[in-house]
């Protein structure tokens, strides 16, 4: 089974993703699923932009679609995203978690159940605590945990919360994150 990467990002997250996503080569055996907190706005413009600067295909995740390597899936605004065993997307409108829908915790938890040690989880910049519990689950189920270096992040609260919650395997700058992931594949 190919590896899967889940990314959680909040305040400042788009800036970080603009650095990380374009670093991945075209034929990579990795699927990427992202929760970025953007409020109720729609995703279309930044998805189009990321697509234009990346070698991978960037798109909004669709209800019950199959997850495929070489794609980057973004959670739609106002829906949680969960992963079904067999690698299928499910959406949910359940209550917000950490004032967030989509929530990073919800994605990471279900991805951990499904991909276990084939999963890599990354927590990037942000101003809330969403993702800390999720990253803990990634670790618990045998996956690899990475957190953006809080000293260099645009907002340090989210990386710090994740570090306190789970002692991640790697703490890295944005520039080093993609390099490390390519080594892990």
């Amino acid at each position, binding site marked *: 089974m190919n590896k899967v990467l889940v990314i959680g990002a909040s305040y400042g997250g788009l800036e970080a993703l603009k650095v990380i996503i374009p670093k991945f080569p075209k034929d990579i055996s990795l699927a990427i699923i992202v929760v970025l907190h953007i409020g109720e706005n729609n995703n279309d413009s930044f998805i189009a932009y990321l697509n234009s600067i990346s070698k991978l295909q960037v798109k909004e995740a669709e209800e019950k679609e199959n997850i495929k390597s070489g794609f980057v899936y973004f959670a739609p605004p106002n*829906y949680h995203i969960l992963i*079904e065993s067999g690698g299928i997307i499910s959406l949910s409108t359940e209550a917000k978690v950490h004032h967030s829908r989509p929530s990073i915790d919800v994605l990471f*938890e279900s991805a951990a159940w499904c991909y276990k040690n084939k999963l890599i989880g990354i927590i990037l910049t942000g101003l809330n605590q969403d993702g800390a519990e999720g990253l803990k689950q990634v670790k618990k189920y045998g996956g690899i945990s990475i957190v953006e270096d809080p000293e260099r992040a645009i907002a340090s609260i989210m990386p710090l919360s994740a570090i306190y919650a789970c002692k991640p395997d790697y703490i890295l700058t944005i520039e080093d994150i993609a390099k490390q992931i390519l080594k892990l594949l």
Partner: protein
Amino acid sequence: MDQSQIENIDIEIPLFLEAIFQKYGYDFRDYSKAHIKRRLMHRMAVSNFTTISQMQDKILRDKAFFLELLEDLSINVTEMFRDPDFYTAFRTQVVPSLKTYPFIKIWHAGCSTGEEVYSLAIVLKEENLLDRCQIYATDFNRKVLEIAKSGIYLIQNLEKFQRNYKNSGGKSKLSDHYTVKYGSIKFDQSLSKRIVFADHNLVTDHVFAEVNLILCRNVLIYFNRELQNKVIKLFHESLSYSGYLCLGTKESLRFTDFENNFTDINANQKIFKKIIGR
């Protein structure tokens, strides 16, 4: 958690759902597995069980506990005029054709606490159609149906509702449609008298009535592909010739056998029309 405990959970959950089905007749076996697991793990932690099997023992013997879990499993989050653009599309692309019908039967499936049903009734009233409509609003959760029937909602959420109403192209003021009392709002009699609320389970019950319009928004996302297909089949059978089907903004007919039996009226807002003869 050790390896064997992780494996056990995936063995125990289907058994647990089977037990609920055998005992209480509610069938969650083809719901989205990730969604069910999330709700069960949450309930296990909150109610201090260490295994799903322990919880199964409890659920077989304690109906009150089952009813509590039913609340967990039926996600009831809803709001008035959720996705305002949907209502705009409905007004401009469905209402004109409904106006040509002498009488309109509507099935609102998975109506939860009813906010969406009153939203629809308001649109129909503003378009002078409500007097010709019969709305059946159904859900499998009796507790939310009681709230829906009462038509009474907390004033706290009003601001959001008003904003949505305005963005949806509302023709008057939302406050024309309710009265305020004791920190709550109550929707007008003229709306509720056209609505019948009823207990109906989309998984285990049959065709409800022949109708001209079905709304079922943000319910199918909790089902797996097979069950989505089964429920769309039920809707297809329930719709009259050229009846309309409205799904949630992120739902589709894509993974069902019925994609070719409907045409898109508005692909973004997931408004479909049954093709005559199919």
